[in-house]
């Protein structure tokens, strides 16, 4: 691992404008959870998400010379990861997506304890339409601003807002109906 880190760091040279960029290996280490999680939220398959995340970093390695700053790097990774994940999810649509109505009923345990709300919510997010799922993941997993989401997904800010509020409405309705949560705000 150490040898590999050294090898790839030396391969990935930095240009003058890239002085502030960390070495490639540190970038992978620092952003792997973000890229992997975006992929996982779309695919719900550890192997496929791992593979997709690797592909994103491989693409970054190929395009390393075009990355200008840490902010650009973050934007690039989020954008490429999201678009690749959307494409991959489309290809395996039948597996990944079920409609809100078709989504499984919560188990008894889910009704009992709040920690199960998380797994239920994950399933509900996975069942959202593609656009709504993308904005929800970028907003609540990546905690991105609306403007940033709009840039990554090539949408208007107003569209992002609309998609988020529609998705939240759907999710709230679903959760309150199925988990009997009275205080879903």
């Amino acid at each position, binding site marked *: 691992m150490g040898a590999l880190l050294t090898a*790839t760091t030396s391969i990935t040279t930095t240009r003058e404008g890239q002085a502030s960029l960390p070495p490639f290996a540190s970038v992978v280490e620092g952003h792997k959870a973000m890229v992997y999680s975006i992929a996982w939220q779309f695919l719900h398959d550890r192997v496929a998400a791992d593979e997709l995340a690797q592909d994103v970093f491989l693409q970054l390695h190929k395009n390393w010379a075009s990355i200008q700053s840490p902010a650009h790097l973050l934007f690039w990774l989020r954008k490429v990861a999201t678009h690749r994940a959307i494409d991959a999810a489309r290809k395996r649509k039948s597996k990944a997506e079920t409609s809100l109505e078709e989504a499984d009923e919560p188990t008894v345990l889910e009704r009992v304890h709040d920690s199960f709300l998380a797994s239920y919510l994950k399933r509900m997010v996975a069942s959202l339409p593609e656009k709504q799922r993308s904005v929800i993941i970028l907003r609540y997993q990546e905690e991105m601003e609306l403007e940033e989401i709009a840039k990554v997904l090539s949408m208007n800010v107003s569209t992002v807002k609309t998609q988020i509020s529609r998705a939240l409405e759907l999710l709230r309705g679903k959760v309150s109906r199925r988990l009997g949560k009275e205080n879903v705000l």
Partner: protein
Amino acid sequence: MTPFEEDLKQALKRQEPAGDFTARVLERCAQEDAKKRNGFWHGFWTAPAWRLGAVTAALVLVAGGTAYEQHEREVKREARGMEAKRQLILAMRIAGTKLQEVQQRVKESEQIEQ
């Protein structure tokens, strides 16, 4: 942020990939770099003998074909030159004959006048 949004944020927390993820990415990148460095010529020189033989034969065929085509062009050009020369000589002969006839007629008419 509402409590529901907080729940959502909790539910969508980032997850870590398998422990050797970075190593695997770096290994793939190193492989890609090696592929790029080696490129076409490395592959050519390290190719099995039959592949080198096939490439050499193809080169010989292309070179031979080009030489043959050039030779054919030369032969045709030479033939066209010879034909042009033959036609020129014939034209000069015809012109000479005509000239002789004219001279003969002029002489005859001069003799009649005298």
